[in-house]
């Protein structure tokens, strides 16, 4: 009973935040809403007996990724999206995609509806840090290693992208080039 | 001798490639383009000489009845073999190819000014691809050479062609490539049919497939057969070109350099008719008979249409090109009569058309080199300043029209006879459609006479109307020397057709019997005696 109430509370909050994220034109509001989603999902993970994932969710998503995003928003000092000069067909496309995915969600719901209900058991070992840690360094050692490489590479990549520009601004060069081309014709 | 017997065809294919490589090396190390023509001429002539070894009496037929056969595995993963060999049918076409090449090279003596290295390399590569087409007995290898012959020709037209060369080259390439790609699908489909039904694993080997069909281990379902037949036929019909797929031909011919036109007319078009005869008849005898009416109809339309359009052409080269359409219509007609006479005639017309039309293109090329125009109206009374040229041109035209004692006549006559005897089209109580077809084709001969003679009249006779033409130099010794073998052949083939026909007889008979008997036809062809003897010309 309590579990259901909590689930609907958090689920409702998550969906509201998600919609608000899409709805808001201002990227910062979107970001805040998204943090809301993350936090409510984290709470849902706790009800799903996955405390480790819940903590990591907060730590990585809310604490690292979104801080970066907010940082970038502040750095670039972004304004609201203005004007509807958007390619019109995208609305149709998005609507279509939404309908398809919703239908799919119903389909999944329908398919899984009769699955037996697993009783709430907070002592389940699957979500415990120890279990996850053990699995990570035995069975899942290889993925962890790959993640290591992945992170190393991401560091290299982002440093390279963010490093101060050694090249001159090339845009002007490109424009001049196209002028020359135009003259030749 | 064993070595030669085993590898003669491979040598024929490889020699031009070696020539091409040497040409490239020559260009890289000596950088003297002027000597290249000698090198190329040497190699093409050498190839011709080597190809004469095909006449060798000591040649032994291989296990599948082909001479100079060679069969080694090539790519095992897809079960294709490097299987080559010649029979009476391909034999002459190989000779024709090697014969035409030196002449084509000679014709470029002064005509090609720019980028000679590339030009000669392409010519040599083209030769080896063409020989490959005629000798391959493996479907995939055949396809491979068939496509490979496209590229050099594409470049020849595109780089050394006339003003509208790009359009012509691309059109040529895309038309032919499109057809042959569908053929590729059909080839692969055959592979699987063979694999499924014989349980031996797939094979691209023409002989193996034909044998399997003969013994009944491979039965192509009728509907599939029709589709495959049409796929093959489309590829070849485009190449021939059969009306209505002919539109690339006038463009390609007109824009190509003289050597290109000569090769195109003399050899490349024959790939289509050769393919029809070898593959369509060999692999799909039933369907060939079933669809013969279509081909005969298209051939007749082609003959008449080609002639009518040729009549109104202002450009000599274009006129000759359209005459090719008409001639190839005759060839198709003869083939699809499924009588020995008709098919022999078709082969004979293929050869004579190669010689005659090649010669015509050469002649047009000569005048083009002098005047840089091919408009009929730009000439008139050329027989005055250029008597030798006029003489040769008239003889060649006569051969093209099909005047008796010249080569055109024999083939067309045999075709008509064959078609007349044929029973491939329906015979109702009131109408023998074969005879009707023959009659329509006969009008084509008359049309040919009309447009060719009219053209000759406008170009060579009367007064010299254009001032420039008065001072035109007559043919040089090189040019005359180049024409002499062709003229000789025109006459010789017109007078002594027997050695030619005798060589191809058994092969043609085999094909004809395959079509008629495999199909369970009721016609007994023992009675349809081919008038092959050639006595009448003696």
């Amino acid at each position, binding site marked *: *009973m309590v*579990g*259901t109430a909590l689930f609907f509370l958090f*689920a409702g909050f998550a*969906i509201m935040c*998600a*919609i608000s*994220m*899409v709805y808001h034109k201002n*990227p910062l509001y*979107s970001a805040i809403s*998204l943090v809301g989603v993350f936090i409510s*999902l984290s709470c849902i993970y706790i*009800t*799903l007996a*996955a405390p480790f*994932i819940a903590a*990591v*969710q907060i730590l990585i*998503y809310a604490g690292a*990724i979104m801080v970066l*995003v907010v940082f*970038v928003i502040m*750095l*670039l000092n*972004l304004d609201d*999206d203005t004007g509807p000069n*958007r390619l019109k067909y*995208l609305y149709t496309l998005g*609507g279509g*995609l*939404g309908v398809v*995915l*919703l239908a799919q*969600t119903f389909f*999944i*719901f329908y398919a*899984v*509806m009769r*699955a037996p*209900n*697993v*009783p*709430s058991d907070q002592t*389940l070992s699957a*979500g415990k840090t120890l*279990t*996850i840690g053990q*699995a*990570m360094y035995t069975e899942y050692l290889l993925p962890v290693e790959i*993640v290591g490489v*992945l*992170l190393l*590479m*991401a560091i290299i*990549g*982002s440093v390279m*992208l*963010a490093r101060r*520009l050694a090249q001159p601004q090339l845009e002007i060069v490109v424009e001049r080039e196209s002028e020359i081309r135009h003259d030749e014709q | 001798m064993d070595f030669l017997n085993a590898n003669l065809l491979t040598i024929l294919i490889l020699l031009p490639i070696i020539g091409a490589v040497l040409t490239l090396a020559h260009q890289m190390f000596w950088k003297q383009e002027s000597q290249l023509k000698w090198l190329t001429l040497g190699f093409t002539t050498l190839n011709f000489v080597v190809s004469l070894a095909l006449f060798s009496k000591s040649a032994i037929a291989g296990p599948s009845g082909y001479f100079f056969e060679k069969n080694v595995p090539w790519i095992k993963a897809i079960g294709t073999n490097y299987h080559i060999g010649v029979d009476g049918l391909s034999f002459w076409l190989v000779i024709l190819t090697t014969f035409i090449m030196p002449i084509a090279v000679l014709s470029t003596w002064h005509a090609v000014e720019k980028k000679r290295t590339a030009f000669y390399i392409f010519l040599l590569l083209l030769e080896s691809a063409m020989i490959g087409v005629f000798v391959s007995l493996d479907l995939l290898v055949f396809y491979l050479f068939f496509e490979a012959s496209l590229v050099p020709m594409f470049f020849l037209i595109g780089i050394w062609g006339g003003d509208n060369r790009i359009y012509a080259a691309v059109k040529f390439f895309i038309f032919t490539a499109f057809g042959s790609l569908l053929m590729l699908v059909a080839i692969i489909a055959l592979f699987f049919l063979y694999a499924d039904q014989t349980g031996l694993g797939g094979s691209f080997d023409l002989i193996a497939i034909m044998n399997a069909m003969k013994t009944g281990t491979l039965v192509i379902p009728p509907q599939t057969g029709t589709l495959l037949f049409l796929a093959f036929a489309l590829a070849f019909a485009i190449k021939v070109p059969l009306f209505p797929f002919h539109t690339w031909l006038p463009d390609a011919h007109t824009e190509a350099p003289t050597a290109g036109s000569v090769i195109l007319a003399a050899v490349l078009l024959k790939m289509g008719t050769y393919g029809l005869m070898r593959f369509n008849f060999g692999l799909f005898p039933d369907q060939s008979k079933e669809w013969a009416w279509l081909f005969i109809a298209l051939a007749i339309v082609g003959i008449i249409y080609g002639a009518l359009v040729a009549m109104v052409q202002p450009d000599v080269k274009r006129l000759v090109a359209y005459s090719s359409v008409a001639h190839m219509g005759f060839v198709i007609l003869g083939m699809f009569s499924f009588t020995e006479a008709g098919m022999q005639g078709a082969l004979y017309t293929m050869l004579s058309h190669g010689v005659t039309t090649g010669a015509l293109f050469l002649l047009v090329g000569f005048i083009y080199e002098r005047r840089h125009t091919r408009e009929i109206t730009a000439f008139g009374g050329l027989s005055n300043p250029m008597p030798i040229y006029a003489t040769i041109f008239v003889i060649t035209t006569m051969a093209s029209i099909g005047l008796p004692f010249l080569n055109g006549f024999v083939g067309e006559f045999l075709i008509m006879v064959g078609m007349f005897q044929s029973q491939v089209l329906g015979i109702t109580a009131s109408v023998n459609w074969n005879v009707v077809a023959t009659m329509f084709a006969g009008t084509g001969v008359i049309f040919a006479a009309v447009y060719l003679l009219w053209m000759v009249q406008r170009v060579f006779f009367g007064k010299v109307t254009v001032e420039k033409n008065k001072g035109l130099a007559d043919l040089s010794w090189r040019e005359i020397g180049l024409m002499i073998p062709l003229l000789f052949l025109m006459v010789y083939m017109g007078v002594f057709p027997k050695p030619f026909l005798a060589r191809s007889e058994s092969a043609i008979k085999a094909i004809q019997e395959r079509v008629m008997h495999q199909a369970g036809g009721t016609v007994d062809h023992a009675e349809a005696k081919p008038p092959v003897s050639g006595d009448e010309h003696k």
Partner: protein
Amino acid sequence: MEPSLASYLALSGILFTIGAVGVIFKRNALGMFMCIELMLNAVNLTFVAFSRYYGDTTGQLFVFMVMSVAAAEAAVGLGIIIAFFRNKQSIDVDEASILRN
């Protein structure tokens, strides 16, 4: 009464839908990026729900990997967005149109 597997999957599906539609409706690259993060989260929820259902750690480990990847992706993605902004002074994808469509 506890919420069933189906309800978790439904929630995840709805969040995924919102994210996917958002990617298409959003005009600025950062917004799109956030929508993608939302989609990834929805997927994570699916994994955790199944992990719970099967009493199996695999799903949670997968989620952990996804999170690491998401962090890496964020670092690189934001770098790219900043680089674009530096040259264009905007991150509106509609204005990203030098390359013809």
